[in-house]
């Protein structure tokens, strides 16, 4: 009798495991979380992926025409001397381009061409440190204690049944609303 029960138990466990998230979905979720941690201002998560954290309306407002206004021109500061900044006269072409046409970081990195340098040259892209040598510690996402168990549906960790119920009601990604 024992071997037959063993086979049935194995079959049941297989069915339970299949419902969890695929590793690449988990990786994408972690990536999105890390990107959110780099934002300057909080934006409510929308349904669209790839919402940038630069605010298009903050500061460089689009006027009716094509000219954008710079916040640096709105100040009433008194700077000594007679540099263009002090006299508020027209700046040079280079400076005006730099101020008006704000490029985002990805564009700047691309334009700098550091990606095409030989690998012996250290650059901003290659300067990151080595990956971790240890497996990650599981921390309960609800209370911060050691997360000994993982949610079956969304693979986030929790420590006990209270945290599990909180997680299932609020943050589980596969929750039934």
């Amino acid at each position, binding site marked *: 009798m024992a071997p037959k029960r063993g086979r049935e138990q194995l079959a049941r466990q297989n069915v339970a495991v299949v419902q969890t998230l695929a590793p690449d979905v988990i990786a994408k979720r972690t990536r999105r979380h890390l990107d959110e941690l780099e934002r300057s201002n909080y934006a409510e998560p929308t349904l669209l992926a790839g919402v940038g954290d630069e605010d298009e309306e903050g500061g460089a407002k689009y006027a009716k025409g094509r000219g954008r206004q710079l916040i640096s021109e709105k100040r009433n500061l008194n700077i000594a001397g007679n540099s263009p900044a002090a006299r508020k006269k027209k700046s040079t072409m280079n400076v005006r381009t730099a101020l008006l046409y704000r490029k985002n970081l990805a564009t700047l990195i691309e334009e700098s061409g550091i990606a095409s340098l030989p690998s012996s040259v250290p650059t901003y892209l290659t300067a990151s440190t080595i990956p*971790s040598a240890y497996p990650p510690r599981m921390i309960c996402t609800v209370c911060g204690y050691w997360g000994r168990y993982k949610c079956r549906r969304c693979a986030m960790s929790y420590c006990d049944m209270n945290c599990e119920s909180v997680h299932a009601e609020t943050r589980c990604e596969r929750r039934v609303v």
Partner: protein
Amino acid sequence: MPPTVVLDNGAATLKAGLVGAASPTLITNAVVRSKGDRQTYCGHEIARCRDYAALHFRLPFEKGLLVDWDAQKAVWDGVFSDEVLAVDTTQATLLVTEPYFNLPNIQDTYDQLVFEEYEFAAYFRCTPASMIPHGDLFALPGQPPAQCTLVVDAGFSFTHVVPLLDGQIVWTAVKRLDVGGKLLTNQLKELVSFRQWNMMDETHIMNDVKERCCFVSLDYNADLEACRVDLAHNPIVQEYILPDLSAQRGGRVRAPGEPPIDGAQILHMGSERFAVPELLFRPDDIGLDQAGLPATIAHAISCLPADIQGMFWANIGLIGGCAKFAGFRARLQAELQSLAPHGTAVRLTECAEPITAAYRAAHAFAADAPRLARVAVTRAEYAEGGSGAVRRRFDAPRGSEAERMLLQEAPAAAQPPPTGRAKGRQPAGREDERTPAPGGRGPRVRSAKAGAVGAAGTGSTGGGRKR
């Protein structure tokens, strides 16, 4: 005597001052819009802000690099105006710091802003760590300045580990940990917002909470168990009373014996107090697949020549805002000791004010006007040669033959220093004369690609540049 402006252009705060003022003015490097006041504040004007709930920040720096020049110019205008420094920029010399691994096109924009907009007479652009040897972080009384130092710059955007050999950065060994003050504040906001009050908009307040309540634990396991103890006997749990804007009361930590204050909103800081700075040591707690700071330091040192590694282990300096966490140094010392090879002495140096350490070192560098004049670029040179000329003056191309020769000759230089130190302290201002001393160094600095700080002064490029 033309004034010299020293500007440590950080991602969180600018440290600005004139040579002669030993302590800088700290200015938040952001343009802040306050929804309550319905006003926009640039840089130093933030002190006038009355309602600092739900502030909208516009930071010139993104991921450690200066991308938003409009905002940065707005802040710089305020700094150079008569409200802060009151300097006539056309007569002054500027020493400004740039991020590590700054992009060449961004460096060109620095030159354009400095020379074409503010029209400084001369300027010098460098990284914060390259200034540290000129300061007093590693200075020991009665001994010459250390030759091999490792600077850990725990800043707002990232934490960099920067080895310096003879005052020059060894770029192939510079490593970056993508955890900085910004990530820690955002992580704290998330934890608190999920568990207690929604503080996702309150960057300014949560920054204050982080600075007051957070510490680095020496034993994560023990501290985690300790904060599960009930509230009355808990050594770790603190309560932070949120600021009350109508009563004009700032936020503060509640002292242990205080009676409860009604009407105040309280944040209970339990494991968040040490779980947040823990990310510097274990970034994989949130899924960032990078080694922690101790392992990064060990890796950076392993990229250096084997026979001088011991000297780097003994001269590790901590600067930057994140180095201010209580327990940071002790925890780093303990973990580094276990990673260093057996028998190596691990010595960490820190200073009382890590945030202004780079400023004070740069100030010491700039105070010696002839030395600064040797390395700075004047407006005339920029007008002639453009950004290319500036680049050739400022830093040696990374990964070039100059650096390879530097690393190869380092073992040869390692023997003279022990006897050299016994002869007494060498004056710091003569380092350009010191470099030819270990024999084989002379020809190197006279190569066509010279431009390294300090060492090029006596080279062939120096002869034609008398102004």
